[in-house]
C-alpha cells in the first residue's frame, strides 16, 4: 500500500516548520491565521477528527517574532540558561552497542546516538540531502518530521508506520524538558506556551496517525 496519507504528509510537513528557526514568512502565516486554517484543513483531510479544538489556536498564542526567535535560540539552539534541544538522541540511550566502551554508552543526554545513525541511514537510503548545519544532527525534530512527511507521501504504509513508532516515542521527554524551561520575561511565557502548544499538537497528530495504523493492523 503506498501514498498512504498525503494529507497527513502535508500536516507533518507543516508541523516541521514550527521547529525550524523562526522566519518572517512563517510568522506572518501564523499571525494572519493561515497556518491555523491549513492545520485544520489537513487534519480534517487526514482524518484526525478526534483532535482538540485548541490545536488550531496558534494565531492567538503567537508572541512577537523577535521573542519567538530569542526563545528558539535560547531553548532549541542552546544559547541560554536552560535548553531543550529538539533532538532525538538527547532523550534516548546513546547506543545499544554492547561493545561500546565510552562511559556515556548507556546514558542519555548526548548527541549522535543510535537514533541519529539510523536517521542518517534512512536519509541516505532515500537520497534525501540534509543541509550542512544539520548533518551531524540528522535526528533533529524538524528533519524527522520532513522525513515522516516524505514517507507518508511517497512510501508504503509499513515504512511510515515503523518510522513513526520508533522515532517519535521521545516527545514526552522533550515536553518535560520544555516544561522545565523558566521564562525570563512575559514574552518568554507566551513563546514557551506557543512551543508547548506546537508540541502538544504534534503529539496528538502522531497519536492520530498511529491510531490509524493500529486500525489497519
Amino acid at each position, binding site marked *: 500500500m503506498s501514498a498512504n496519507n498525503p494529507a497527513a504528509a*502535508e500536516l507533518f510537513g507543516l508541523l516541521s516548520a514550527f521547529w525550524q528557526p523562526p522566519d518572517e514568512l512563517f510568522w506572518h502565516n501564523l499571525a494572519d491565521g493561515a497556518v491555523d486554517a491549513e492545520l485544520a484543513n489537513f487534519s480534517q483531510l487526514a482524518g484526525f477528527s478526534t483532535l482538540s479544538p485548541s490545536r488550531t489556536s496558534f494565531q492567538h498564542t503567537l508572541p512577537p517574532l523577535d521573542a519567538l526567535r530569542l526563545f528558539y535560540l*535560547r531553548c532549541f539552539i542552546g*544559547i541560554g540558561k536552560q535548553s531543550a534541544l529538539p533532538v532525538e538522541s538527547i532523550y534516548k540511550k546513546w547506543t545499544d552497542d554492547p561493545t561500546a566502551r565510552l562511559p556515556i554508552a548507556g546514558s542519555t543526554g548526548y548527541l549522535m546516538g543510535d537514533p541519529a545513525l539510523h536517521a542518517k541511514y534512512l536519509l541516505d537510503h532515500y537520497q534525501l540531502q540534509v543541509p550542512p548545519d*544539520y548533518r551531524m544532527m540528522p535526528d533533529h525534530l524538524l528533519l524527522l518530521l520532513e522525513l515522516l512527511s516524505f514517507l507518508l507521501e511517497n512510501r508504503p504504509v509499513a515504512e511510515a508506520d515503523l518510522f513513526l513508532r520508533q522515532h517519535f516515542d521521545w516527545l514526552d521527554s522533550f515536553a518535560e524538558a520544555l516544561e522545565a524551561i523558566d521564562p525570563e520575561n512575559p514574552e518568554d511565557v507566551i513563546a514557551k506556551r506557543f512551543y508547548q502548544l506546537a508540541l502538544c499538537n504534534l503529539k496528538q497528530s502522531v497519536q492520530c496517525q498511529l491510531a490509524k495504523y493500529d486500525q489497519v493492523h
Partner: protein
Amino acid sequence: MRKISRRTFLQVAAGSAAVGVAAPQLLDMKAFSASIVDAPVSKIPTYCNGCSTGCPMFAFEKNGRLWKVEGHPVGMKNYGTLCARGHGVAADLYNKDRVRQPMKRGADGKFQPISWDQAFKEIAEKLAAIIDKNTGNSVAWMAHGGKDTYGAMFLDEIGSPNFITHYSTCFTSKTNAWDKMVANQLTIDIRRSKYMLFAGRNYGGAIIPAAMKQLTEARAQGRKIVVVDPRLCELAKIADEWIPIRPGTDLAFFLGIAHTLISENLYNKNFVQKYVFGFEEFWAANRDFSADKAATICDIPAAKIREIARDLAKNAPAAFLDPGYHGLHNHYINSTQIAQANVIVNALLGNFYQPGGLLPTARPPLGSLKLPKRLQPEKGPRADGAGVANEYPTVETSRGIAQHMPELIAKGKIKAVFLYHFNPLRTAPDPEYQKGLAKADLVVSIPIDWNESSYYAAHYILPEHYFLERMEAPKAVSGNISHDYPQIAIRMPAVKPLHDTKPLLDIMQGLTKAMKIDDLYPFTVEDEIQAALAPLGIDKSRLQTEGCIELATPLKPGFPEKEGKPACGTFTGKIEFSIGAFKLHGRLGVPTWIPPLVSPKAADEFRLIHGKQPWHSHSQTNNTPYLLEMTKSYNGTWMWMNRSRAEKLNIKNGDTVTVESKIEYPGQSARIVKKAMQVKVTDMLYPECVWVPSAHGCFSPNMTYGYGKGANYNDFAASRVESLSGGCMVQEVIVKVRKGAV
C-alpha cells in the same frame, strides 16, 4: 492543496526514486542498531586533552562515532592507561553544551549565531579600528598553553607584546625561579630513587598515571616516599609517611632541611663547590634558621625535619625533593622563595642531572617551518608589566600576568583581548573583578564550551574543533617525570567535526585574511608535521599511524659542561642560589624566611587552601557529566574541615556552612563574599585550614551540568600580583566559617 509556502530542509536528490527505491533493509531501528555492532573499527592516534599532561592515546572510531579510548602503551606519562578525566573528556565530544557555531553578542547582551565569514569581517573591522587608534600594543592574546605559535605570530604581525599565559594563576613562581637558578625545569627520576620527598605535589590528584605506577612500585620495593601536605592527599595514601604541615610555611620547612644539611655537613660539598654559585650568600643569610626555628613555624617537629634531611642525604644523589607544582608555587607571598629553596635543597643533595635525583626531560629535536621574514611593527612594553622596569621586572615575559587584565582594560592599556582556551572568569581570582574583561572594546573567545569568560565577557565566540576532531603538529611527550628516551606524539582527527567549528589555524587564517594580512599562515598542519619530523628522519605516515614514537637516542645523565666547565645555561653556568635579577631590582637574591601574608586568628577563621581532585582538571572538566557523577558519589563539592575545629563550631559531617571572605582593593570599599558549602569533617587535614576542591563553582548558565554546583577558591580571593613572579596568591585568604546556609 497547500496554500502557504514554507521552507523545507531536506532536499530530494536529483534522480532520487522516491517511489521506486526498495524498502530499507534496516528500516527497523533495533535491527539497524544490531547491524552496526560488527562495523569495522578504526584506531586513530591522538593525545588526551583532559589536562596539560597530554597523555598519548588511541581513539577508536566505529560508525563515524567515537567507540572507545585507551592509553597509548608507549606513552611515558601513562603507560597505556588513561585516568578518569581522559575518559570523561573523550565522551564530552557529544556533550550538548559545546558551542556549536560562531556566536556574536547583540546589543541586548544576548548571543546570536553568526556565520564565520561575518564574524571574521566584523572582528577584523573592529580590531583594525582599535589598532589604528591605539597601536597593536593595546591587543592581548591570553591562552592556556598549546599551539602558542599561531597567537604569537598574530601578535608579532600587529606589533603586540602581550602574549599572556595562565601560568600566573598556576605555578609561575616555580618556572620563574627554576629558569633563573637552573635554566631548566628538571624532572624527578622515581624509578631509580631511593628516597622521595613530596611537598605541595599530589601525583594522585593531579594525576600523572605513569608517576603513580612508578610510585606504587617504589613503595612495594621498599623505597621511601614521604609526603608533606596539610591534607592527607591521594599521594599521601600510598606513602610511607604523611606529615601534616601548617599551610604557607613550606619555605620554613625547606630552609630547616637546608640548614640541617649544611650545619651537619651532610650536603654534597664536591657538587656545591663545582656546580653551585651563591652558596655562601645563602648560608650567610640563613645561618640562624635552624630546624628548631623552622619547627616553630611549620609545626613539624625539629627532630622530624632533621630526620628527613639526614635520610635525604643518606640516599643522595638518588633522593629528591619534588620540584612541586600548583599548590605551593603561586599561591603564597613566599612562593618564589619556596621554589628557590626547593632548588637549593636538591642542589645540596647533589642530585641535579643524576639518576634517582633530578633529570632533564628528554626532548626530541623537532624541526619547524622556515617562513619568510615579514616587516612587522615595533612592539612597546608589555601592558601587564612583566619584565617592565618599575612594574614587575622579574616576571617572565614568556608567561606574563593574567589575573590583572581587567585593571589593564580599565586603565585603557588593553582594548582588545583574545581568549584561547582560557577562562579567567573562573580560573583567576575574584570572578566579579574578572568580569571587567567585558569592558574591553573587543573580546574574542576561542573555546570549546560555554565557559564563564565566553558567556559573560566575550563579544564573539569562535568555537574550535574538539580535540578528537582536529589534527595538530607533533609535540614532545615530556615533563613532570623523567624518561630516558625522547618521545613524540601526534593528534589526528578521530571523527568528523560534529558542529560548525574550525581548527585554530583556519580561524587565524580566516581572521587575518579578513584583516587583509596576506599569507601570515602560508602553511597547513600537514606542512608543520613534515617540518617537525624532518630532523628526526621519521616518516609522517608512520607517526600518523603509530601516534607516539620513542626515539633511540638516550638521555645522558651528568651536569652539563662545556670545555670542562659547568654550562647549565645560567649566566655562571652553575646552579645559582642567588638570583642576580632579583638583586638588580633591590630584592634579596637568596631565599630567607618570609611569613605568609595573612594568618587565621579567631575561632571561626581558617586559611582557605585548594587542590585537584583525581577526576577533575580544575574547572576545565566541571561540566563533564561522567566526571560529575563521580563528584556526586564522593561528595566531591564538599569543603574539608578538621574535626577538632568543626566540633568547636558545632559543625557535623554533611552540614551546610556559610563561608565568608572579605575582598578588598586599594581605594575601594571592601566587598563581603558569602557562599554556602557542605562540610566533610575529617582528621586528615591540618586544623588551621579548610580545603576545597579546585574544580567546582561553575557559574556559566550554559554549562548546564555543572552550573551552580559547589563553590570555588577563586570566589573568595582578591586579584593580586606577587611582585617577583606574578603569582596570584589565592591561598593567602582567610575565610570565616559558620554553621548554616547563607
